[in-house]
């Protein structure tokens, strides 16, 4: 995978987020302030607009630029979190013109680490980490079992989906939903959901 491949992944992510923005907004209106969809779509549409300018960049620089664009346009809490995730993922690919599934694992690892640090959060707090961390674990397990990268990514998507369902069963202890305490139980986390859409876009792009 090189910059060209990465650009098609990011384009697909942006299109999926835009398509699902109302759904993400609705999820957020139950336990937050209802702007997750609008904010994410604004950011990823800006990223999509800039992709032609990014086409001469190496993968690491490309991901960093995507992260910076998200930080500057998404706003709220999602901006810094997704921005950090993309910037950290970029750091894992530094100096590489081409990267493989193992580099992708490292990138996801660094992204998760960045989100945990930025949000001072961990698994089980009803956040995006509840779909990110299981998807990384599933990806690594599958690869360790000798599965090919497409199969491993499919496992990662399934685990992210399970993670999203898991967020329905727990109370939020981070972010605006934490003000609701136990009243947040029963609702799925919008951030965990948007991450699932992102990893799903990665899988769908590579499958083709």
């Amino acid at each position, binding site marked *: 995978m090189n910059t060209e491949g990465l650009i098609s992944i990011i384009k697909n992510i942006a299109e999926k987020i835009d398509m699902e923005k109302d759904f993400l907004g609705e999820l957020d209106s139950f336990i937050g*302030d*209802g*702007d997750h969809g*609008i*904010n994410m779509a604004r950011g990823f549409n800006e990223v999509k607009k800039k992709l032609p300018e990014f086409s001469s960049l190496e993968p690491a620089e490309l991901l960093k630029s995507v992260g*910076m664009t998200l*930080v*500057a*346009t*998404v*706003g*709220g*809490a999602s*901006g*810094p*979190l997704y*921005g*950090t995730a993309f910037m950290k993922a970029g750091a894992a690919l530094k100096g590489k013109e081409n990267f493989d599934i193992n580099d992708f694992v490292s990138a996801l690892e660094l992204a998760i680490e960045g989100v945990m640090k*930025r*949000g001072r959060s961990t698994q089980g707090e009803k956040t995006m980490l509840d779909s990110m961390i299981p998807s990384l674990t599933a990806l690594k397990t599958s690869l360790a079992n000798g599965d090919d990268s497409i199969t491993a990514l499919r496992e990662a998507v399934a685990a992210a989906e399970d993670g999203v369902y898991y967020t329905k069963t727990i109370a939020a*202890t*981070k*972010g*605006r939903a*934490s*003000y*609701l*305490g136990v009243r947040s139980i029963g609702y799925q986390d919008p951030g965990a959901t948007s991450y699932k859409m992102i990893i799903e876009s990665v899988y769908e792009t590579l499958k083709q």
Partner: protein
Amino acid sequence: MKKFINAVSDVENEMIQGMVKAYPQYLRKLDCGNVLVRAERKENKVALIGGGGSGHEPGHCGYIGEGILDACVPGAVFTSPTPDMIYEGIKSIDTGKGVLMMVMNYTGDVMNFEMAAEMAADEGIQVDQVIINDDVAVKDSTWTTGRRGVAGAVLVNKITGAKAESGASLEEVKAVAEKAIANVRTMGAAISPCTIPAAGRPGFEIGEDEIEIGIGVHGEPGTYRDKMMTADQITDILLERILGDLDFTGREVAVLINSAGATPLMELFIINNHVADVLASKNIKVYKTFCGEYMTSLEMAGFSITLLRLDDELKELLDAKAVTPAFTC
């Protein structure tokens, strides 16, 4: 939605430009975006930067000027500003003595300011921060994001700004800010919601005969909902929570009765009438009172009561000269 606006997408930009045109003697807008700084830069002082979502006018841009803030970064309505803009603000006001970020305790604000601070630190600018969290309506525990920053921020910024204006070091200015934060408590209530222009409909629904107690400045749900009551009754409820959270007995306090936007001064004075009596009965001496629109929530009808426990240092800083669009003394 019935509002005096033009295009919804122009609300923040036009509001900020209008504010600068109203107060050119205090405010200047940076070319890079919605970042407001003091019109006349003062050298050799710790610089203070505030910010947060728009929709709380005059908070916080109205407090830019001598004796309070050096810069303010307004985000979209009720949305945190982004790190690139905060960073531009920091860069613009740094005099070499360091910058203190006055951050309201919301997940988004905290993260965006933190990223801006990292960017500024990479450029060799000394940056530190305090987190303002005066709302006693929200439980402060390891299980939540913690208390929200609400109207008490106005007094915290005023006092911290006075310290910075005096030429104190970043460490000293931060210590005063933390002291003010440790001594300030707020709680509010609302009886009608507000409409974010981009949303086009009210943020919550509330019956004609209902009151939301412990409401946040973005119309977030409060502690509970009750039947409408008299000014004295709601004042008693709010004061009980505030006084139960921090011991004010025998101390001097500053009182801030803040309108959420639609509640008129007449009602604020009726509330203050009872606040003053209750405090007197509890041996709490009112040093200074502020009534008015200091930190609003668009057109929400509601108010909050803030009490700030004072000592000699805080009294002196509260009285120190300030010349800004929304606060002068």
